[in-house]
């Protein structure tokens, strides 16, 4: 089986994959990257609601880029003055 490398970018943090994983084909590698991104995002995003960008770059055995996948998370809240109950300070706040 060919070896694929999955470099992870979490915002400005770059976590290269020195080891790689043996997988049957490129399609499996792409599925793995997609699933990994969703798992990492599910774990990391609930934090503080800040915008996050996760990218996985798939490299082949010669370390040439063959594919990339990303999850770009942004939480938006309505601008001040909008009628939606954004960031309201209700009287049952402490």
């Amino acid at each position, binding site marked *: 089986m060919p070896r694929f490398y999955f470099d992870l970018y979490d915002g400005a943090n770059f976590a290269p*994959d020195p*080891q790689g*994983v043996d*997988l049957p084909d490129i399609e499996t590698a792409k599925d793995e990257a997609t*699933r*990994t991104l969703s*798992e990492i995002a599910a774990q990391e995003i609930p934090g503080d609601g800040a915008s996050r960008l996760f990218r996985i770059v798939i490299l082949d055995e010669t370390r040439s880029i063959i594919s990339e996948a990303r999850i770009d998370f942004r939480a938006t809240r309505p601008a001040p003055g909008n009628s939606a109950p954004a960031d309201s300070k209700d009287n049952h706040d402490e």
Partner: protein
Amino acid sequence: MTSDIEVLIAKLAAIGRLHPQQAEAIRNLPIQVARINRGHDVVMDGNIMTHSCVVLSGMLHRHKTMKDGNRQILSFHPPGDIPDLQSLHLRKVDYTLSATTQSVIGLIEHKAIRAMLRDQPALTDLLWRDTLIDAAQFLTWMMLIGQASAEARMAHIFCELYTRLKVVNGVSGNTFPFPATQTDLADALGMSIVHANRTLQALRAEAMLSFANGQAEILDWARLASLAQFDSSYLHLSDE
């Protein structure tokens, strides 16, 4: 590690009180020794069983595969375990039991186990206790898969296996065999292979755990156990 029935005696002595005459009854069980190659099935989902098996060397795992092809590994079984003890009462098995690596098992006919339990009723309590501990491991596993981070799940499986192997003399210092592949670990922990691989790399970079070629080494037990939130009380080793 012994590769005969003594490993079962060591396991049972670790989880409860085993009197010398009960150990002798286990030694007198007729067992048929079989070698199983990596990946081969010992028991298949739906089989109707007339015997159970004890792991003598190597490792087995229980697993089930969804109709869409996704596999969940339910449990790993190091030497000393009887992974299909339930079939003594639930003859039609509802999982598949396979060899994680080349393994040696001892097949014991159910009627021989029943005869032994008639002669040594206290052994019934001990095997019941073993089954309850098996269930307790599933409870812990369910919690981890549902609630713990990838790093905590990975750390936990190594902490558990180290603890279970230690009581059957299966560890050498901080090193122990864990002949699972990264795919096996991913299927056990409910994560992608790439995620499992990255998680292992992170634990290695943090100098907590090293895992390569089926050998694990705990580099920093305190930090690994803390990350895993590992509390061995659910394994009920010598707490009777």
